[in-house]
Every structure is written in structure tokens, then in C-alpha cells.
């Protein structure tokens, strides 16, 4: 995305951001407005970071697996991450660092199980990875429900964890950790963008990539590891948010974006904007906040049906 198009897109994005933070602010008394703005800015950062990470990781996974229907949710990584997060919050009483470590460990485990399942399914690679991801997701979602029942969690917690919500409570004493996580996400994303040339070659053919001097296996697992880390981090804050990683990269491809670098960077803006709008709807459309996953599913399903129709004939 270059020149005029980028400018229009950025203008829309900043307009959305302004509406998101400023919405009905005048309804609040002057002395609490700053506090409300502070709360909204924290949430806004979480929303756009999640949108960027989930969408770009979806784009990268689609390149790695040559499958337009993949993202961290479909592969079961989110399910594993959520299970790890809840497991640690039960045993370690909400220590954020330990929770994220657990979330990362179980995300990694779920990805490995998915890959191992898919290699044992005698079917087209595109289909087998989807089926195995689906099975792993069901497995970990069920484990999350069982764990929540045993730990006597309230049902609303489960409701929002399984369908995602940005209504996170930020604790001021954890500010340094939040900044550290944010920095690691930026650094790892920049690293992936640096690897986009290799991704381009890998997306064509593995043999061509090998003869071009690209270490396919090493790159594949290293990039996958980064995606797992990023996803587990987001899942620890917002729960399971699906489909956004499928929609935006596919829209970009439809718009003629082919290069990995453009696809990933385009996914940043697209993902952040989509999640921003979805969160706005989830926050203000009813008298209570509905999970973000509900809004995204309603938006995404017709589009996903269209992708399946065109890719799995």
C-alpha cells in the first residue's frame, strides 16, 4: 500500500481511533474525564496491538502453510494458550509473568499436537491441518470449561474468555511488564518483516527456497515460535479472538497485495481497524458488553464461506 491509498487508509484509521476514544466523553463530568480517557487509551492500545498481532500472524501462517484459512485460532494455538493462562491463574493466583509463560507453553504444545495430528491424517494438507486444528481447539476449549468449573470461576469469566473481550483491568504496578510485552511484540514483528523475503520464496516452493539458500525448516519453526509467543501474549489479556487473522489477509490478497512484506504491514492497519470497529460495536451496541468474538463471527462467517468456496473445490 503506497501513496494516496495509504494516506486514505491512515486517515480513516485515525478517525476511527478518535471516535473510539472520544465517544460520549462529554457525558462525563469534567473531573473524571481524564480518568476515563486513561482507561480508554489503555484499552485502545490493547485493541490495536491485538488486531495487528492476530492479523499479521494469520497472514504469516497462511504463507507458511500455503493455506488461506489458517490463523492462530484455527490452528488451536489460542485454545492452548487460554488453557495455560487459566491453569496458571488457578495455581499461581494471577501472577502475570507466570501466566504468560504457561500460556506460551500450552500454545506451543497445542501447535505441536495440531501439526502431529495433521501429518497423520491421510488427506489434502490444506484440509488435514484445518481438521487437526479444529480438534485441538475443541480439546483445549473443553479443558478450559472443566478447569473453570473446578476452580469455581463465575460463568461470565468463561463466557468472555472463550469469546474474547478487551474489557481488561490494567494494574498500575504492572506497567513495566505491559511496556516490556509491547516492546517484545514490536521487535518480533519487525523481525518477521525482515524475514519477508524468505517468506516470499518459501511461499512459492520449498525446493526452490532450499536451492535459493533459505533454511526452510529453521525459518518455519523460528517464525512459528514467534507467532506462538505473540498469540499467547494476546490470549492472556483478551481471551480467544478468532477469524480476524483470516479476513484481513484475504481481503488484501483480493486487492492484489502479493508480497509478504506488504501483506504483513497491510494486515497491521487492516486488523487494527477491524478490531477497533468490532470492539466499538461490542462495547456500545447493547446495555452490556458482548464478547468481541460474537461480533467478529457474525462479520466473518459469510466471508469465510466465500474463501472456502473458492479454495476447496
Amino acid at each position: 500500500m503506497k501513496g494516496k491509498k495509504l494516506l486514505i487508509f491512515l486517515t480513516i484509521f485515525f478517525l476511527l481511533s478518535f471516535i473510539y476514544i472520544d465517544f460520549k466523553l462529554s457525558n462525563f463530568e469534567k473531573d473524571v474525564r481524564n480518568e476515563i480517557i486513561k482507561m480508554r487509551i489503555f484499552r485502545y492500545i490493547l485493541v490495536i496491538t491485538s488486531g495487528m498481532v492476530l492479523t499479521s500472524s494469520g497472514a504469516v501462517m497462511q504463507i507458511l502453510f500455503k493455506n488461506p484459512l489458517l490463523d492462530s485460532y484455527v490452528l488451536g494455538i489460542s485454545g492452548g494458550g487460554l488453557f495455560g493462562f487459566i491453569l496458571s491463574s488457578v495455581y499461581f493466583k494471577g501472577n502475570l509473568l507466570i501466566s504468560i509463560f504457561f500460556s506460551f507453553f500450552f500454545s506451543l504444545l497445542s501447535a505441536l499436537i495440531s501439526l502431529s495430528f495433521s501429518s497423520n491424517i491421510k488427506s489434502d494438507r490444506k484440509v488435514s491441518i484445518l481438521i487437526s486444528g479444529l480438534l485441538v481447539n475443541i480439546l483445549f476449549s473443553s479443558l478450559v470449561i472443566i478447569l473453570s468449573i473446578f476452580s469455581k470461576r463465575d460463568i461470565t469469566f468463561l463466557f468472555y474468555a472463550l469469546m474474547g473481550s478487551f474489557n481488561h483491568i490494567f494494574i498500575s504496578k504492572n506497567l513495566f511488564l505491559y511496556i516490556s510485552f509491547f516492546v517484545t511484540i514490536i521487535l518480533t514483528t519487525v523481525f518477521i518483516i525482515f524475514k519477508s523475503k524468505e517468506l516470499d520464496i518459501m511461499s512459492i516452493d520449498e525446493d526452490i527456497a532450499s536451492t535459493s539458500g533459505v533454511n526452510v525448516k529453521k525459518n518455519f519453526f523460528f517464525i512459528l515460535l514467534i507467532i506462538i509467543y505473540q498469540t499467547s501474549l494476546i490470549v492472556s489479556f483478551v481471551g480467544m479472538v478468532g477469524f480476524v487473522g483470516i479476513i484481513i489477509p484475504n481481503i488484501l490478497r483480493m486487492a492484489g497485495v502479493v508480497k509478504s512484506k506488504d501483506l504483513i504491514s497491510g494486515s497491521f492497519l487492516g486488523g487494527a481497524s477491524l478490531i477497533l470497529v468490532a470492539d466499538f460495536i461490542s462495547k456500545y451496541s447493547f446495555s452490556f458488553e458482548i464478547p468481541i468474538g460474537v461480533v467478529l463471527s457474525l462479520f466473518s462467517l459469510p466471508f469465510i464461506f466465500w474463501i472456502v468456496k473458492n479454495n476447496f473445490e
Partner: protein
Amino acid sequence: MERLKNFSFIFLFFISNFLNAQRIISFAPNITETLFFLSYDRYLVGRTSFCNYPKNTEKIEIAGSFIDIDYEKVVSLKPDIVFFSGNLTDKSEKFLKEKNIKYYDIKMEKIDDITKGIDSIIKIVGKDYDTSKVEKIRNKILGIKKLGKDQKVLIEVSEKPFIIATSSSYIGSILKLFGFKIFEDEKPYINFSYENILSFKPDIVIFMHSFKNGKDKYSILKNFDKIKFVFLDDEKIDIFSRSGPRVIDAIDIIERDFCER
């Protein structure tokens, strides 16, 4: 001179009350009812969308629902005290601690907890109240007579899934005081089955939901024709599920509608 004295006293009383004005949010309908009952509604600035009794609650701003709390609203209402009644979640606790807002979880699960709960609320709010009103509740509960004659009462809370209220529930604890036999369990609400109906053999079935065909399943019992079925309307359902000052109404309803004289 006496008049001036009285006037000064009343004036100072109002001023002191105004200066010590508390701002309260209630996240439980039974607490909201209790605050109104104690005339503490003048301090109430927020409630849930479920708090609908008494009618004046409509004037109070909604700060949350049955699903989640509107945290922005809570901040904007600048509360001094936030009340819960067994529904305080980890997330809400984290938020209130972060914002340095005092919060209290007043559990009033059974009939015995009501006066204790009211006393706790009075102590926390620390304002004057009508002592005769609280005494009336105390006396009403103490005055309950065993009119139930060991009749077995089954309280249906929902049809699908089939859930009943046990002796540990609020309504169960009231009926138990009246001498009715309620299904015993540590948990206030449990899943029930047809096998349980056959073994419990209720004499009275109370429906706390609106599914009118619910009584069909009791036709498996030999004494089906003798079973008394009681369908509670929405107002009565609220009275029997919100442990608070309307316990007086609950006791009156049981004496009037459930007990044979």
C-alpha cells in the same frame, strides 16, 4: 427559644449529613432493596439493570448488568462504597482495588443472614436509620410458626435444565423454618432428575419459572392428584429469590398461600 433550639438541631443534622454524604453503588438487587428500606437511597448513585424494586430505583443510574460491570460508569459515579451480594468477581475486585474504592460483599444467602446483612450495611454506611423497621423484620422472622406439617416441598427453579432450589437456598431456608421438608443439599441450587422426583415424592411443587407445562412430569407419581402446584408470578419470584427486607412479604405469602389451616 425552644423552637430556635429545635430548628438549630435539625439544621445541623442536615448539614452534617450533607457533609458526610456517601456515594454508594449497589451491584445486587437485594442490597438495593435494603438500601431503600433503610432510607439510604439518597446516597445511592448506581445500580444494576436488574435492580428494579422499589419503583424509585428507575431514577438511579445503571452501572452494570447481570453480565458485567461498566467500569467507565463506575469511575464517573465516583463512589465511596460499592456493594455486592455474593457476586463479587476477581475482575471487579481487581478493578476496585486499583481505583482505591471501598467494596463489600454482603452475603445474604439464607433467611438467617438477612438481619446480619442489614446490620452490616448499617455499620458500613454509618448513617441514621429507622430502628423500628429493622425490628419489624427481626420479629417477623422470630414469629414464624411451624405450619408446614412436614409436607415435602420441591422448588423448581428451571425446567430445562431441570434445576431445583434446596434447603440451602433462600426460599428453601424460609420454607424450612415453617416446618416444610425441603430437598437437603449443601449447594443452594442443584440439577434434578425424574429418579429424584420418584424418591422425593413431593406434596407441594413450587414453580419459580414461567413454563406452565412443568407439572406434567409429576404424573409419574402415584399421588399426582393430591400434589399442590404453586406457580409464582414474576413479582413473587423476585420476593423469593432476593434475600432482603421483602422477607416480610415472603413470610406473608407462605402463611397465606402454602399453609393449610
